[in-house]
């Protein structure tokens, strides 16, 4: 497979991962993806011979999201604004609102926690593979997943308690 074929075939999927890693910031996601593809190109001879070139690019993508070289798009933890109430309407629209709230809460997580949650629940990677991708131990991955989920729960609770909305009921 040529590099260009690879880009055309895999870039939509990789771009969606980049969007989640970048906290829905489209410009940052484009930057991330382009950086990852550029690095893949540099080693394309080796990468293309591997079983799964996409895995290589995803590895670069995930690490670039945490990388100090990407400091320009790196953000500190970003709590939801007090005005960002969780969903309160208990009809079909609340599913949409709830998802939006979760995605905003995800974007507010520290980059590393966000990355492990995206790799675990969007890319469906097992913990051992995430550890391999990020160059850390499986225990670290587990703890980051656990902390990330705990923060999402915590982000949901106050609003739900204040509003009596469905978020608390659904997330706990």
């Amino acid at each position, binding site marked *: 497979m040529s590099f*260009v074929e690879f880009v055309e075939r895999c870039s939509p999927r990789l771009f969606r991962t980049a969007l989640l890693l970048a906290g829905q910031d489209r410009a940052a996601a484009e930057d991330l993806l*382009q950086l990852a593809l550029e690095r893949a*190109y540099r080693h394309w001879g080796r990468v293309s011979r591997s079983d799964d070139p996409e895995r290589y690019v995803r590895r670069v993508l995930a690490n670039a999201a945490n990388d100090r070289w990407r400091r*320009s798009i790196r953000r500190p933890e970003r709590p939801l604004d007090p005005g960002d109430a969780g969903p309160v309407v208990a009809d079909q629209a609340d599913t949409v609102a709830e*998802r939006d709230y*979760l995605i905003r809460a*995800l974007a507010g997580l520290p980059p590393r926690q966000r990355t492990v949650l995206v790799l675990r629940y969007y890319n469906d990677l097992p913990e051992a593979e995430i550890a391999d991708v990020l160059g850390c131990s499986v225990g670290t991955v587990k703890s980051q997943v656990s902390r990330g989920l705990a923060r999402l729960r915590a982000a949901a609770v106050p609003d739900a308690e204040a509003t009596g909305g469905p978020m608390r009921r659904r997330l706990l």
Partner: protein
Amino acid sequence: MTELEGRLRAAMESAVAGEQPPGHLADLVRRRHRRHVLRAGVAGAASVAAVAVLVPAGMTVLGRFSGTGPAAGHRPAGATVYAEFQAKLTTTVVPVSAATGRPGKPLRFAGAMAVAPNGKTLYLSGAVETIPVSTATNKPGKPIHVGGSLTIDPDGRTAYATVPFGGKITPVNLAAGRPGKPVRVCPIIGMIAFTPDGKTAYVSCPSTGRSTVIPVNTATNAPGKPIRVGPGGSEIAITPDGRTAYVLGVHTVTPVSTATNKPGKPIRVGSPTALIAISPDGKTAYVGAIGAVVPVSTATNVAGKPIPIGAGVPAEQLVFTPDGKTAYVANAEGPTGRVVPISTATGTAGRAVRVGVGALITITPDGKTVYAAVRNQVVPISTATNKPGKPVRLPYGLPVGLVTAP
């Protein structure tokens, strides 16, 4: 899977369903692909026939490259700041004269920048070759056939080239423009730091949480016994007297005696660390962490009181004025890059200078100006007033590198 996990999965799928990368991405990749092939020429992936055709093409590209420097033969007084930007798949290096504050014509080349200790040569390292550029004329010299990033030894005669996942370091004779035989060190290489006498290079291997640092004898290029330093050991800073290498861990700093290559007791610094730099007098190691910079006495290896730089904000980069009286820390608050001056005498932070998205920093050798590269511009900051001057506007995207050639 808990209910939250299931809902998170559904929310993520829903949030990005149908999202497509920019339509021009494939075209950009093709163009960059072509530029790389032309420039690489002898990369080895091409057939012999292709090489015969492509080498002249590569020379043409390099010829154009040489013509893009600012006023060939003229060198403005004072230092030159080289800022590297990336937009889409194009990387651009722009020389900015510290004397005039004006940008020169851009150099188009992808890769890592390194400046020789005497400041006379800027090395631009791409995937397969390194181009030495005279900082007097911005004219490129003969390419060195080694890629990756260069760490140059203190006397400027040799360097080690490496790529993060390459596992090897390649010694390079810079004077002869010739790479030596690569030496396998460890699967993932974090950083290389030379002792001041240049006799030993310490290579960090942060691959799996059981991080090590490997001393390399620069005379023989032989790696020594790995030194265990605990998880997260990626950055290394060596004291000016060369006696101690400080290795940054996740929450700790580990001092390593360069005489014995034995690690000392890890020094806890609290919140997750990001960088380490040693003051010019060698008395203090400054550890950049989340929300603070922590001074560590190199005499006692005891961490001092953290210096706040903004709650929850990680330190990204730190430079000292030559007299060591002030440290400047770059960090980001949301999308806004900031530069925070710190008095090393009092251990207090001054008012942050907001500079824009990004914020890489460097300082001129006279210590009068800190330059911050941010999205589409380079901002000078007077170290006398800690106020930003008129920015140099450069529409080339986000900064990815910044160096000063004295």
